[in-house]
Every structure is written in C-alpha cells, then in structure tokens.
C-alpha cells in the first residue's frame, strides 16, 4: 500500500477539522464563551492550518490520480471477485479437511486425561441434581432399577451409608446387569464391614466377585476387609496390588490404596 492514496484522506480530515474549528469559533465568540483576543489568536492558527492543507493538497499530484485509479479499477468489471472465487473454493476445501482432522485429534486428546468410565468418581459427575429430586423420581418409578441404583450409588459415594443401604437392598430384587449386580453386592458388603459385620461383608463381596471377577472395587473392598477386618495381610496383599496396578484410579483412591498396601506389606513382613 503506498502512501499516495492515504494522504488525501488525511488532508481531507484536517481540512474538515480546520473548517469546523473556524465555524465553531465564530459561534463561541457569539455566545460570549471566548474573548476576542484569544479568538483572534486561535482563528489565525486555524486559518494557517487551512492554508497549509490547501498548499499540501495542491502539491500532491496524486490526489487527482487517485480518482482515476479508482475509476479504472471500477471499470475493470471482469476483475471483480477474481480473488474471491479462489478464496472461497480454497477455503472451503481447507476447512473441510481441517474439520475432519481436528475432530479426530480432539477425540484422541480427550480420551487421555479423563478417568476411565468405570471409576466410581465418574458417577459423581451427575453433581448438582439433588438427592430429593432423585428420590422423587425413584418413588415415581419404583420398578426402575437404573434410577434407584444411581441414587444408591450417589449416597454411597457421599458416605451416606444409612440411606444407601435401603436402596441397594431393594435394587437386588430388580433386574440388573451383571456389572450392576456385582457392584451392588460389593457395596452392601463394604457397608456391612463398616458397621462391623466382617463375616457377612466377606460373603457379600465374594458373591459380588463371583458374578463379575473383574470388578476391581470389589477386590479393593475384599483387600481392605481382609487387611483391617480379618487382619489377614497375606490375603489382602495380592488383591491390593492388583487394584493398585489399575490405571485410572482417582488420586484420592490411589493414596488410600497405597496406604493400605503399605500396611499390608508391613503386616506380611512382621506378623
């Protein structure tokens, strides 16, 4: 971009302001806002500016040329949109390709940092819905296992075992997938342990693991119960080690598992 086209516009602006200055100055004097002396000094300045602008404009040969240049380009009608055809086609193609790439890239990026969907912390992502609300839904659909189970899970994860246990017990009478059933039994077992019923806890958790041998939370429970309830660190150790080896444990859970693991190892070494 050469300066030649810009200059007339700048000059135009200055001329406009100078003319307006003069006009307003007269008005101000009329209203008695300015005294004659100041006004005279200012007027001289504005008139000098106007003269300077005119002089510069006269010395600027391109100002006329600009007009013709513009005119020439307008006249060259066929040239209109020459670039934009190319831009539109090229851009659309590029965007199409990019979208596909980004979409899959995003998918790859996403799957990494998120915990695996099986971890119990994930169910807590239904944060915000109130338990009362869920209770109401459960009451309205007593036969819906999924809803009741979610509510029970939620209470369980909040540590509200008193509320959780009822729903878990009721949900065992409903139709459940194997995963759900094993989770239900395992958690009932864990709650039994937390009220001191170690034997029945072990029974429940074993049942749970029979249904779904890959249910890691059940292994964790069994490990914990073996370690602290049955005081059998040797039995606990492999279970806890197995759980600890799982990827995608929550940070908090990881800490707890490691602590228990340390306890178990200590127990095995010095019975």
């Amino acid at each position, binding site marked *: *971009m050469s300066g030649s086209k*810009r200059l007339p*516009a*700048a000059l*135009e*602006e200055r001329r*406009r*302001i100078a003319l*307006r*200055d003069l006009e*307003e100055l007269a008005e*101000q004097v009329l209203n*008695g*806002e*300015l*005294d004659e002396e*100041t006004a005279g000094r*200012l007027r001289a300045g504005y008139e000098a500016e106007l003269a300077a602008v005119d002089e510069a404009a006269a010395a600027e040969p391109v100002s006329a040329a600009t007009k013709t240049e513009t005119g020439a*380009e*307008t006249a*060259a009608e066929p*040239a*209109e*949109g*020459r*670039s*934009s*055809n190319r*831009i*539109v086609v090229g*851009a*659309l193609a*590029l*965007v*199409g390709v990019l*979208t596909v790439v*980004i*979409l899959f*890239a*995003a*998918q790859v990026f996403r799957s990494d940092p998120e915990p695996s*969907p099986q971890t119990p912390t*994930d*169910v807590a*992502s*239904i*944060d*915000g*819905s*109130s*338990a*009362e*609300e*869920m209770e109401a*839904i459960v009451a309205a659909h007593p036969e*819906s296992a*999924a*809803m009741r189970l*979610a509510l029970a899970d939620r209470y369980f994860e*909040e540590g509200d075992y008193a509320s959780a246990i009822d729903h878990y017990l009721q949900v065992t009478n409903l139709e459940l997938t194997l995963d759900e059933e094993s989770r239900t039994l395992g958690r009932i077992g864990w709650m039994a342990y937390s009220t001191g019923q170690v034997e029945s806890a072990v029974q429940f958790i074993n049942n749970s693991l029979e249904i779904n041998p890959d249910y890691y939370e059940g292994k964790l429970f069994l490990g914990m119960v073996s370690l602290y309830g049955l005081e059998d660190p040797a039995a606990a150790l492999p279970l806890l080690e197995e759980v600890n080896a799982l990827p995608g444990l929550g940070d908090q859970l990881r800490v707890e598992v490691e602590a228990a693991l340390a306890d178990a190892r200590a127990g095995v070494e010095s019975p």
Partner: protein
Amino acid sequence: MTALAGYFGIVLAMASAFVLALLGLRGMHHPHRVSRRHLELAVFGLMAGGGLAFLALELGLLADDFSVAYIADHSATTTPFVYKLATGWAALEGSIVLWGLVLVVFTLTVYLRSRRDKEINPLWVGALGIMGLITLYFFGLMATIANPFQVCVEAASIGCLETSNVPWATAMAPLEGPGPNPLLQNHPLMAVHPPLLYIGYVGMTVPFAFAISALIRGESGAGWLRQTRSWTLVAWSFLTAGIVIGGLWSYEVLGWGGYWAWDPVENASFMPWLVATAFIHSSVVQQRRGMLQAWNFILVIATFSLTILGTFLTRSGIIASVHSFTQSPIGPALLWFLMVILVGSLSLFATRIHLVASSPRLTSLASREGVFLLNNLLLTVFAFIVLIGTLYPMFAEAVSGSQLGVGRPFFDRLAIPISFALLLAMGLGPITPFRQARGSVVWERIRNPLRVALAAGAGAVLFGNRDGYLVLGVVAGTFVISVILRQLWVTASRAAAKQGTPVWRSFWRTMRSDPGYWGGQLSHIGVALLAMGIAISANQGADTQLVLEPGQTAQFAGHEITYLEDFERDEVNRLVLGARVEVTHSGNTVVLEPRLNRYARSSQPVATPSVDTSLRGDFYLSLTGIGGGRISLDVFWFPFIWLIWVGGVLAAAAGMFSLIVKKPARVATGAEEESERV
C-alpha cells in the same frame, strides 16, 4: 439429530468465518478483487451456522434431548421453561455458543451497514475480515475443546457417563439429567445477566476490528470512530446494564446485603467498562478536535483485550471467585488467544504509530478538551488500579510464593477519591467551552447549581448525616445533576425565545436536536444518582443481628420486627425453610419471608433474603439460622438504595437514547458530521 445439526452449524460457521477472514484480509488492500456476492455468502453462512448451533442447543434443551451430553449433564425434564432456556448459557460450552451467536449477529449488522456504500469500502471489508478471524477462533473452540454437542455414548441413570466428540456417534441417552446448578435457578435475573454482559463484551469486537483494519491500512482520521460509534454505544449500554443487573442479582439472591464485592470476576467486567467509557469520551475529542488519535487506538485495543482477559479469568479457574467455572482446557486456549491479540495488535500499533498519531492541538488545559483528558486519565488509572488489585495476589504468589489478600479496603481507598474526581469532571466538563474556558463563563454556569448542591449537602447535614463521604456524595451528585438541568433549561429557554414557544415544549426538542450530547448528559445523571445511592446506602445504612423466638419483637432503625412463625416447604429441587416476620414502620405492616434453601450436596444452606422496598429505602431481612424454636436474622436498613438501580438503568438506557433518537431531518446539515457532537 440435535448434535448433528448443531455441529453442522458450528462447522458451517467455521467455514464461513474462514472465508470471510480471507476475503476481508484480501479486500482491505484490494477491495475490487473481492466480490460482494461472496462476502454476502460468507456472512450469511456465518449467521446461518451460528444461528443453527444456538437454535439446536436451545431446541434440544426444550425437547430434553439427552443424547447431547451438555443437555444431559446440565438440564432436567423437571427444569422450568425459563431455566431450560437459560441453561443454554449457564455452563461453559453453552456460554461460548451464545458468545458465538452474538458475535455472528454483530458481524451481520456490520455487513448490512457496509452495503450502504456503493463500492466495497476497504476499511469495512478489513474490519469484517478481522471479525471473521475472531469468529473463527470462537467457533474453533466449540468444534474442539469446548464442544457443546458432544454425544452421550454411555448413559448413567442420571446424566452422562461417557461422551464422544463425533457428532454422528451412536447416542445412548439417559432418561433424566441432574438439572442446572441450583444457584443459577434461584432467581430469574440470572437468565438475563449473562446475555447482557455478553452483548456488551462481544460488541466491543466491532470497534476493535475497525481499529485494527484502520491500523493495517495505515488510515488516519476519525473515520473508523464515526463509523463504529453506534456499536460502541450499544456495547457500552449493554455492558452497563449487565453490570448493574449483576449487582442487583447479588443483592437479591446472595443475602449478604451487598451488591458489589470487588470480586475478581466483577472486576473483570468493570475494567472493560471503565476503559470503554474512557474510549467513548476520548473519541468525542478526536471527532471534534482531531486530538488523541493514537490514544483511541490504545483504548480500543485495551477494551477488547480486557473483555478477553475477563472471559479468561472467569473460565480458567485460576482465581477463587463465586463466579468461576471449574478448571477446563479452555483456560490455556483463551490465554493463547489473549496473547495473540495483545502482541499482534500492540506490535501493529507500534509499527503504525507514526502514521496515525495526531498533532497536539490542545489550546489550554482549562477547556472541554482538558476536562476530557482529566476524565481519561482518571478512568484509565481507575481501570489500571482494578487490574493491579485483581492480578497482584496471583503475580505475588507466582513470584514469591507467599500469599496475599487484596480486597475491598484496598479498592475502596483508591476508588473513592477517583470517583469523586470523576463526579467533579462530570459536573464541569459538559459546560466548559471547547478550546479555552474563561473563569467567568464557567462560574456563571455553575454558580446556581453549586448553591443547589451546597443546599442539598447542608440539608443532609441538618438531617443528621455527618458522614463525610455521604455529604460529599450528595453535594457532588446534586451538583452534576443541577448543572445539567440548568444547561437544559437555559438552552431550551433560549430556543423557546427564538421560536416564541413555551419553554416546556422545547425541552424535548432541545434534547432531540443533539441526541449525542443529551444522551451523554442523561447518562451522567444516571451515574450521579448511582453515586448518591452508593454514598447514602453505604454510609447511612445500618445492620444488626437478631435472635428471635416466636412472638418476640425487636426494634431496629425505626422498624418493629416480630417473628411470627416458621414454615417448611418441599420444592422440586430444594427444601425451603423460612420464617414469617412482621415488620411495622410508622403504622404500615408487611410480612416478610426470608428463607434458607437447602440443596443436597451443599454443606451450607443458601439464604434467600426478603426485602421491603419503599421510597425511603430497603428493609432487608436475611435468615442466617433456624431451629430450636428460634431464628437468627441479619437485618439491614439501606436508605435510598433504589437510587443505585434507577441510576444504573438510566445510565444504560441513555446510551441507547443517543442512538435511537434521531434529530429532525431539517437540522441535519451533513448528518454524519453533526451526529458526532456528543
């Protein structure tokens, strides 16, 4: 279906934005190389895409389409209609969709206006290109890390377990969602406050885009200012309204009796407001007097950057605030965007400053221009202080590792004197002549208003208000208002004398003859009222804590407070515990019902205050505890606090006044030139 449609909208908008950006950047130097048809195609494609994305999200919300993870995780079948709509922008991804929509609408208006020119105007096409780039970024966010149309591929019983970015993935929709965050469905103002702020934030993109276009083209002059004036005013008005409504929400909902806490996120909306206000004033100086050209570029770059900074602070979770969303990958993305904007535009400015800097034309500091300069100094220093106060703890911790608190006392200490200085400038500026002001002229114009102001101040003192800030606030506020009213009176009566009509008939005519100036003055009246409201309610307000048993009565601030009974109510999403309290003042009795709402998973109950509003002020009850047959109450008395809301709304509305009111055609001698006289 929703996901597919919505995602298609995003991609369409992205493609159009990309095309628009390329066309714009090309057209800014070679306007004849791009065709208007293609430009139109790009803008309409953008509008269609952005509109489709927003519509898909809203319709999905209304139809409870839980196959979309965003809807499954933030809405519920039981959510009331209004809050379903508001859920569209209540959470992170949705709020960006709204942002995108507003941006797209602004782009469309810019394009439609540009059609007024017979030929493609390079400045406008360049601005459209810049807007295209910015739009591309936001829709790019939606297409990648903040995708609102993720498909729910594994449902939990309530909400979604696993999501997929691929819009045609086979969905597995849950039967029910958890519903929006309880605090957000506590008050309908929450549905209004974010869109207002967004329109304000996003509207600042338009002057920014024009400024960048003018800078790239090395175009000096006030052209870009004149042409973006309406957008700047629209954005400013909405930003003002958004901030005031936000304060009102805080006052009505949070129960602490306050409306402004200098919370980082409040500050984040206040900073662009301050700089935008400075910009509106300094652009007048450039249009009238040809001064401050480079400074205007700086201000508009600062305003836009501050809106992005504000969004970044809200979205990245790096500061503790009532408003912050949780941590998300969008934080770094916004930070990079902010960096590109700052480095790009400031470097561009540095390479162009010799082309755009205007020559110094200040005749005297004692002039309208001089007061405008003072106003700009005050407003930018104010914004700078807020910026430092907000970010300093973070910077101090990053550098020294030790923690530091910067809060209300710090901000108040610096903001109060600046605000008084601003009020003074507001009182003097509009009646100070341009170029050079003689003392006698100014004195003549402020003499009587000063007396009125002093009388008001003396009145306040005689009524027993001895607090310095209160009295000064009343004096300053009354001064500003009476200066303006006097000016209106004098101008109108002069016009009336000329035309031989009664004075009262020429008030409206006078205001209409110069909507820019009088809109500004109305806005000043609004700000003065607001300032008085703050000064009075903050210094003359009182509060106390009461513990009452049923039937027990207490006295406070001339009111008699009797605790009648408690009540309990089960609502869809919460348990409401409340107290009925009878409040009697000079024979008038009302029953207020302050409440505590208990939401699951929240250890602290959320208070909903109950307010008795009268002309004298607000009597404000907030329940802090209930049980054991007793209640504990926070009781506040805020005299004249309505001045804040009335003033704020007036200030915002006045910004629109100068846009909507058209001066009569016969006066218009070169309409464009006249209308710039703010």
